[in-house]
């Protein structure tokens, strides 16, 4: 009796596990549609642009208002601040080196 009870429990556990596997499979499968859904809104503005003449008589004079500030300035990788930093760093290194030479000379003079 006890053995059949245990085997029944084992069977139940196996059934639960078996049921859980497809559930996990569904769970892993479901995220893949999400990027395709997020891709849809990015496509949404393009039909809007193609339908521009029909949008003209809308309430606002600027029918689609952009968000944020426009990025109308591409800077060069080597900007003025970067070269300033390099010059400062180089000068600091040169002075530190000079200080080191001075110390070595002092040490030699003292004969330590």
């Amino acid at each position, binding site marked *: 009796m006890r053995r059949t009870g245990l085997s029944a429990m084992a069977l139940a556990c196996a059934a639960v596990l078996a049921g859980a596997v497809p559930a996990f499979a569904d769970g892993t499968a479901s995220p893949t549609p999400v990027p395709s859904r997020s891709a849809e809104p990015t496509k949404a503005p393009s039909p809007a642009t193609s339908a521009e003449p029909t949008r003209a008589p809308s309430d*606002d004079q*600027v029918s689609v208002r952009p968000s944020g*500030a*426009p*990025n*109308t*300035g*591409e800077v060069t990788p080597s900007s003025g601040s970067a070269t300033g930093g390099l010059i*400062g760093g180089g000068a600091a290194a040169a002075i530190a080196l000079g200080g080191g030479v001075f110390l070595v000379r002092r040490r030699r003079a003292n004969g330590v």
Partner: protein
Amino acid sequence: MSPLSRRAFAGAALASLLVACGGPGTTTGSSTSPPPSVSEASVPPPAKSVAALGRSVPVGLKIPAIGVDTSVMQLGLAADGTVEVPPIAAHDRAGWYRHSPTPGQTGPSVILGHVTVGSYGDGVFRHLGELNRGDKVVARLENGKSAVFAVTAVQTVAKADFPTDEVYGDVDRPELRLITCGGPRTGDGYQDNVIVFATLST
């Protein structure tokens, strides 16, 4: 180490520290000076009203005061919802935001251009911030007509405080907005936008 050499070491360390701070210090000094020019001159525009033009897409732009004579492309929205900008190229051009009125129509027509184009150097709107009230801006239209505007205000504003309503909001006459970047440079761009406001004059 003798007291004298210790003093020399301390002196050298202090000198190197001072120089290291001096390098970036000069650049931060120059970057702190522009912020006071947040609002240059927002003068009320002239009262006379000029008849609006019909819809016609802009194809060219001339600003004689700063030597601009460029073709005009069309711009839409970028994927992140901001306005598109013209491509980075050696001879870049200005771009008209196609969801705004065409120049000469009632409303704020918006034209954008780069101040610098990376390694190519100066952009088409490099000297936009040097415009003054009354300077002429001519938009050549697809139908062969021209819309002539007069500058009413030039503003330099922090990008974080971009005046969306002032730029894109409804107005009761034909107006023009010329937009580029300006102010102090950071590692990945400019901190400010330069905005020129103009109204149709003829």
